[in-house]
Each structure stands twice: as structure tokens, then as C-alpha cells.
């Protein structure tokens, strides 16, 4: 038999798992794929990203992929859009660089300027 507080726990946990279906504000991370993105290694970047988010138990972060308008030597590109809608393009991403971007930008809210030309 569940008590009210146990029900509330289920509620919070459940909402985290299905929040992508709600209108809740979230950080969106978009990995540019397409055939050129995949060729440049974007899939490994995506997998590293997912692992990192899982390890840090982050909520309200939505990850999706988008078709790539050919960026040539800038790929793989990862776009981070914060809750206010501000976009930052991270270029030449690798699985190794993912942890830093997640920690700095997604967790601490500061764009990591070394991996992007968008921020001075």
C-alpha cells in the first residue's frame, strides 16, 4: 500500500522520466548528424553525451539529432540551447570533449568558449 509521500516520490521520478512529453523548460542538446556528420564521428559524440548525462543523473535535458547542413571541417557540431532559448554551437566535438561541455554549460550554465566561436 502506498502512502501519500510514496506516491509523491513516484510522481517526481515519473515526471523526470517522461518530462520530454511535457511543456517543461529544459536544456536542449542537438547533435548534427546527416551522412557527413556521421562520417565525421558524430555518433560517437552522441553516445558519449548520452553516457555522461546518464552518469550525472541529469534531468530536463533533451537530446535529439538533426540533419546536417554541411559544415565541412567544423563537424561534428553539437548545439546547446539553454532554457531561455540561447543557442551555442560547439564545433569539432569529440567524445573526450563531451564531459567538459556537459559540466560547464549544461550543469553550471556557462558556455565553454574554447570549443565554440560563438562566445568570446
Amino acid at each position, binding site marked *: 500500500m502506498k502512502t501519500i509521500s510514496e506516491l509523491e516520490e513516484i510522481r517526481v*521520478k*515519473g515526471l523526470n522520466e517522461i518530462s520530454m512529453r511535457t511543456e517543461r523548460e529544459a536544456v536542449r542538446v542537438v547533435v548534427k548528424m546527416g551522412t557527413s556528420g556521421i562520417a565525421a564521428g558524430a555518433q560517437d559524440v552522441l553516445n558519449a553525451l548520452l553516457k555522461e548525462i546518464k552518469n550525472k543523473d541529469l534531468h530536463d535535458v533533451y537530446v535529439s539529432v538533426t540533419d546536417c547542413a554541411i559544415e565541412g571541417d567544423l563537424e561534428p557540431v553539437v548545439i546547446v540551447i539553454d532554457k531561455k532559448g540561447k543557442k551555442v554551437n560547439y564545433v569539432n566535438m569529440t567524445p573526450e570533449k563531451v564531459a567538459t561541455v556537459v559540466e560547464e554549460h549544461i550543469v553550471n550554465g556557462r558556455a565553454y568558449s574554447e570549443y565554440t566561436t560563438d562566445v568570446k
Partner: protein
Amino acid sequence: MEFNRSQILVCAGTGCTSSKSADVREELNKELVKNHLDNQVQIMKTGCFGLCAEGPILVIYPEGIMYHRVGKDDVKEIVEEHLIKGRIVKRLMHDSEELDEITHKIEHSDFFTKQRRVALRNCGKIDPEDINEYIAFDGYKALEKVLTTMTPQGVINVIKDSGLRGRGGGGFPAGTKWQFAADQESDQKYVVCNADEGDPGAFMDRSILEGDPNSIIEAMAISGYAIGANQGYIYVRAEYPIAIERLKIAINQAKEYGLLGDNILGLGFKFDLDMRLGAGAFVCGEETALLSSIEGKRGVPRLRPPFPAVKGLFGKPTIINNVETMANIPVIIRNGADRFKEKGTKNSTGTKVFAVGGKITNTGLVEIPMGTSLREIVYDIGGGVPNGKKFKAAQIGGPSGGCIPADNIDVKIDYDSLKEIGAMMGSGGLIIMDEDTCMVDIAKFFLQFTVDESCGKCTPCRIGNKRMLEILTKITDGRGELQDLEDLRDLAEIISETALCGLGQTAPNPVLSTLDNFYDEYLAHVVDKKCPAGSCKSLISYTIGEDCIGCTKCARVCPVSCISGEKKEQHVIDQSQCIKCGTCFDACPKDAIIRG
């Protein structure tokens, strides 16, 4: 296990299931495993989105992209293009969708933006077979609120204040009904949910049960607390196997969590819920017949008073509410009566779910605020009448309802406005008709249904409706006379005043409504022996015109061999033998055959 980045919700309502959405789910799971995506992407069942004409439908999150008419063969492309490469499969989308490039945030079509989904709030949003998802979306919060902060009378006051009226067709104020039952002193009381949904073409209740069964469980527990009942029954028609399955699962899960049983939430409230199945009888949707059926007796209505709220199931005070009425209860409790009243009109608060069918582009399920005009439903939400045909009328309320002719297309849909024009809200079935529909035939269609379903207990329905049907059949067969029209009206008026139950009393409605609004069609059938809509076979005659080239195609396909003529010579149809099947009309390569 990697992070779940995407969830794909595939409609598993009866409609999409019969279009093989289960195969789509299976194929999706296969393709995900093949592409090593099965620990990144989750596939789940969900309830009805409402755009049933375009099923099977699925939605992919986090983008919220909706794909239409998805078949097993489309799955590979969805996985490869959308999930792996990030390319939206445009051909599976609805025409009017516009996409933001990066986030894929989507402008939904008018079909969705003009609706206000309250009773259907979770359909399409949750997996109905997982109670945790219902709980995550504020499920059982209303029951918590009721058991911890409200008295039974307090609950009734909120429901009264909300103005919620019965959504099954009667439109009786729910709060008032609950008050009657609460005021009775009795050792035992019952709450019953009417999930018999007998109107042909109606599937509002079915979709709620299939897509959000927990909302009904929660509502029934709340209603039990309010009137002092600790036993509830859901009476579901046997023709809804998916709904029955979902309810079974939901009730078991609720019992496991102690949300049904002896000590709900540890707060000392006891409430048990059981299902009872119908067995193919329209009359068992009538509340007293339904109770009789639960008692194990033959489903026949009885005289009222006494009303069920005073003396109902097994002679005890009982409230019977429709599924859609119940679906609104948790929302009213959680958000308050005032929020509920923000939508709708003064005397018809809230929203109503309609099953829109017939000659309309977007057939399916819609939920709109009361007071929305029929015009908006037909054109903005419904997408208009297809094939360039003209809107002629809308039948509302099924076999108990009336028709709204084109002149009245701006009528606001609410209980009282509809009554004023001789129609009735009914349970929510809305059939749109165009210029090719014969209104006499429509009356006959509904009466065939009513006669078939008559329980036989009272003479007006058992014999009266049958006589009306005989007259209508005479008319559509081309044997009608003017006297028949007078007899029809007399019969209809008498039956509506003397039949025992609501079903019998309202059975003449389609007849009265069409006689009032389309009298000229009846006259044409009876006096001119013509069917203006070109629909009644017996009143159509086929003749071969001068464009005939004597190719003999018609003679060869005629099933009764009544066409004569030499090769390359004018052919002639023997009218005395012709069975008006129209096969020759379809076969003629020169369109030389005239139908009229």
C-alpha cells in the same frame, strides 16, 4: 544502460490497432535492436490522438513530431532517417505542419489547436498500461486532496459549483444527482459507471477507457467518498475488448498500490471496484436496465420514480455516471470549479468530446469547449466536406438525436441551444451529411437500429417504432402516400410521450427532426416518387440515352439480363425487370446511361 533520449508513443486504441499499429510497434522494436538503439529509444503504447482518419499515428519525443498513416514498411525509414540521421520524414507528416529547423518545434494544424482536451487530457500522452505514468501527470492527486482536506459534502459542493452536466446524453447536473444519493440513509450505497456506449459510431468513452483508464478509477473512488459508497461497478460493453483489458490492468495496478481496497493511502477509506460486462444490448445503456443487468436479471428499464439515487442497484441508493462525466471529476477537484467554468457557456460548462464521422475530412475524436459553433467543428476542426460537396446537415445524438440543417450551422453546441432548435446533445456522436445523403433514409437507418434494439417491454416502443419503420420503408421503396406522412408524425409524437424509458421516448427524434427540417424531401419521395439526393435505389430509374454506341457492355454486366439491343445499335433497359443496381451505369464507357 544508456540515457533514454527519445520516446515513441504509438496509438494503441481500437481504431489504430485495427490498422495494425501493433505491427508497427513490433517492427520499431526490431529495427531499434538492429541499429543498437534499443537502450536509447523507448517504444510505448498510448491512447487515441483523435485524428483517426490518419491512423496509425505515432509521436516521437522530445521533438513532438507526429507521423500519420504509418505502416510496417515505413518503420525502417523512420529509424534510419529520423532517429539516426535526424531527417524528418516529411511524407509521413500532415500537410500543414511547419517545422523549426533545429528544435523541430511544430505548429500543429487547426485540428489540434482548436481543441481543449480535458477528458482526453492523457490520451496520447501516457502509456495507459503503466499507472506510474498516470501518477506522474498528477494522477491520484485529486483523490489525495479529497481524502485529506475535504468532507464528502465539500466534494459534492465543488461538483455542483462546477456545473458539470451528464455527458452520456441526459445532461443532468452531476452534483445534484450525487446530492440525492448522499442524502439517503442506507447501510450500503453504490457508484456505477456507464461504459455501455451504445450509440452507433460513438467511441468517446471507448477512447477514454483505452487511453486513460485510471482517470475513471480515481473518479469513482472520489464519487464513492462523496456519497458514502464503498463499492463501485464499471459496466462495459463486451464489444470493447481492448478497453476491458486496459481497465483490468489498471484496476490490478491500482489495487497493488493500495489505491483501491480497504485502506486507501492509509487514510481509512475503503473502496472496491469491479467490472461487469454487457452483452450486446443497446437498452442496457439506459440506467435502470443497466442496473437490472448488473443484478443478473434481463436488461429492461423500469418506471421512475423511485430514481436510482434513492433506490437503485439491489434496492440501494446508487449514482450512475457516464465515462466522460467521470473523466472530468479529477480535473475539477484538482483545479477547482472556477477553472472548469472558464471553458464553455453559462449553463453548459466545460468541454465535450465528439466522435465526428460521415462526410468529413478529419473523421475522429475531438474535444471542444461547449459553445463552439457547428461551423467551426465542420470547417476549422473537421477540415470541411470532402470532394467539393455541399454540407447538408449534421446528425447529433445518434438514434436519440435530431439533425441540424445547413441553415443552422452557426448554432452554438451546448445543451440548451441544441434543444431550442429541436436537436439534442446526446452522447457525442456527430455524423456529417452532404448533398448525396437522403434524409428520409437517415431516419430509416436510425429507426432500424432502434427497432432491432427494442427491449419489448412497452407497447409504444415495441410496436410503435416498428410501425414507423414500416412506413419509412414504404416511403423509400416508392410506395408512400401523403397519409403516411401524417401517420408518421402522429406516431412519433405519441411514442415520445408514452414510451417507458428515455431510449423509446427519443427514438422518434430522427423522424421528427427530419420531418421538420426536410419535409420537401419526404414530399418528393411520396408525391413525385423521386429521391432528390439520388440515394434511394427504388426511386432511381436508369435509362440509356442517345450517346449509346451499342458496345453491349451494359447488357453483358446486367445481373438480371434486362438490357436488350443489337451490336452498334441503341440499347434499351426493360424498366419492369430493372433492379436499379447501377452496374450498367458504372460500366458504360460513354456515360450514356442517365440516372434519375
